[in-house]
């Protein structure tokens, strides 16, 4: 059997990719309008933002951490974008992008520094910062909302115009995801994240700069959340105090469903992105299949649980197999060939 195929079948991304394709196939068969260019475009646009968030979150989770404050970071960045355009109508779009990303990076650094220096689980730290950032957003925005009318046409068009059939912001997302995937797979410092997530103590003993890497993960995640916030302002009509609330759940779901282990050490950015697309597709599929859209969140929850259960069951199965294999080996039988 070709080695390539065996390796393919072991990919953690396979289940989610298959699920995605299956879902699209089933929905399209039952409702051909699902694959109309306009609906596909809507799907891509919606998925783009979650996919970018998922890519960043994947990096954090791979290193055995989690960042629950991404929704709030997105909100702040989105509102900052709206405000900038409202106050400086002629501001170059690039500057706005930079501003959003910087805000995100700074907030990410706040999280990262606390996680690295305080030795407290990132779950708790980012639970707190979720609150703090959201509060700042509320305080700043109050009841104000900025509407897309205040933003330059070119900016909003980023979500409308397409290149090769894909909206510009989606292309941007793909580029970001590709860059992150290459970094995590092909750079020495990128591989460190996996080691850290697999065994932080051993990683430290090996001389891997755990603190530096974890901080980097949070900063990059924050920056990506900031970027997502800017894109949000491009795609959606209004940004205000409640922008991004609750997104963190969808992001964690996407990442976990996409094959990234919740305890770190394995999974890929690409898988997380596929998970994001899968999740977005579920919403659209539910509408296309005329299923009550109220089921969407329940489905998200069920998916998270299933993904974790499957992961756990396979870990248990492996451990048991290992124990029995070792027992078999230690029986003083005939000289066996060395390893299977």
């Amino acid at each position: 059997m070709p080695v390539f195929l065996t390796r393919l079948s072991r990919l953690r991304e396979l289940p989610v990719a298959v699920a995605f394709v299956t879902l699209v196939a089933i929905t399209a068969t039952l409702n051909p309008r699902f694959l109309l260019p306009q609906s596909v475009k809507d799907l891509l646009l919606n998925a783009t933002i979650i996919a970018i968030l998922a890519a960043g979150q994947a990096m954090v989770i791979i290193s055995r951490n989690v960042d629950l404050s991404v929704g709030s970071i997105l909100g702040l960045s989105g509102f900052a974008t709206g405000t900038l355009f409202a106050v400086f109508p002629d501001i170059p779009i690039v500057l706005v992008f930079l501003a959003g990303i910087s805000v995100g990076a700074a907030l990410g650094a706040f999280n990262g520094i606390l996680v690295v220096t305080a030795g407290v689980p990132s779950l708790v730290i980012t639970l707190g910062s979720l609150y703090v950032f959201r509060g700042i957003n509320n305080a700043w925005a109050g009841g104000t909302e900025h509407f897309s009318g205040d933003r330059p046409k070119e900016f909003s068009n980023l979500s409308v115009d397409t290149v090769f059939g894909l909206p510009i912001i989606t292309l941007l997302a793909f580029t970001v995801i590709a860059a992150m995937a290459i970094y995590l797979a092909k750079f020495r410092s990128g591989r460190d994240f996996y080691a850290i997530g697999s065994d932080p103590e051993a990683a430290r003993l090996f001389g891997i700069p755990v603190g530096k890497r974890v901080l980097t993960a949070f900063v990059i995640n924050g920056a990506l959340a900031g970027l997502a916030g800017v894109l949000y302002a491009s795609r959606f009509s209004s940004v205000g105090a409640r922008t991004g609330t609750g997104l963190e759940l969808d992001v964690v779901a996407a990442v976990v469903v996409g094959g990234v282990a919740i305890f770190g050490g394995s999974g890929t950015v690409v898988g997380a992105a596929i998970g994001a697309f899968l999740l977005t597709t579920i919403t659209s599929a539910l509408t296309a299949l005329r299923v009550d859209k109220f089921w969407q969140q329940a489905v998200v929850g069920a998916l998270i649980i299933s993904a974790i259960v499957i992961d756990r069951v396979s870990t248990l199965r492996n451990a048991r197999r290992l124990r029995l294999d070792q027992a078999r080996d230690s029986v003083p039988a005939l000289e066996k060939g060395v390893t299977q």
Partner: protein
Amino acid sequence: MTALSSEIGASKIWQRINLRDVAMLGVLLIVIVINSFARDNFASTTTVGYLLLDVIPIMMLALPMAFIIISAEIDLSVASIVGISAATIGALVLREENMVVAAVSGVGVGVLAGAFNGFLVAYLGLPSLAATIGTLALYRGLALVIIGDASVGSFPETWTSFVQGKLGATGIPTVTIAVLFFIALAVMLLHYSPFGRGLFALGHSQEAARFVGVKVQHAKFWLFVASGLVAGLVGLYWALRYGSARSDSAAGLELTVIAAVLLGGVSIFGGRGSIPGVVVAVLLVATITYGFRLQRISDVVLVIITGALLIASVTAPNYYQKIRERWRFISRAKDSPAS
């Protein structure tokens, strides 16, 4: 054999008292005093009454949460369970069901939800962090399915007036008695019962607990069931207190509950904490909230402060530890021996 200090010394009173709890109590009193001066009607019983009505859900939820965190787990789905219970009650009332049936069903749903959590964590062995993030979404989603967009407000008069009623002229809600009962129960269970002693061992390590005969899976399962039960009761209370049951009832409340519990001295790593500390922390957060509201300071600031308090309360002990170690290192240069 008669060496100088061959006996364990007597423990001083001040060693037996939890200093952290006392400090927290002090802070609470200070905050109350400040507020009383700042605003005349703060100390009035009507004010206290309203404060208590609002604080009851958090107080109730914080009790089982404290148990769960002390046993080194966490339940992020409590607010969603409140939501699904409230939604169940609302949906049944909407369908002209008897209020008693609705109430029992609502609480029952809470128990089932807690049992499912318990099953996932205790018997399947899933990490509670991940599992309850999943059930948080699942239960909130199911609440949405049960009640949709509707907001049910028409509950029988007898029920709502009981919940909102006060004790005579004092302005203190009648339900406070029930809450006090639960707090007493929690104190007895955690600090004075064998089960509670076993929980602290469990929070340290599952092995240590097993070695002293704690039935680990059993204990964890029932803790989550208890959490679900309490959340179900809170769901009933919520519907009656606010006169409305919606799919997003109590959304986001889990963060306040966890923040209060951690602020109350319960260690996120398990094995440490006290109910009095948690009670004081909840009251502290509530008092600050209410004080701010009276001063017309927006809720927003409160949200920021809750988050900041949460972060501070978990990081402070670690930073303090690090500073102490640095100090010890300077004065003694001590290594930790190899095992």
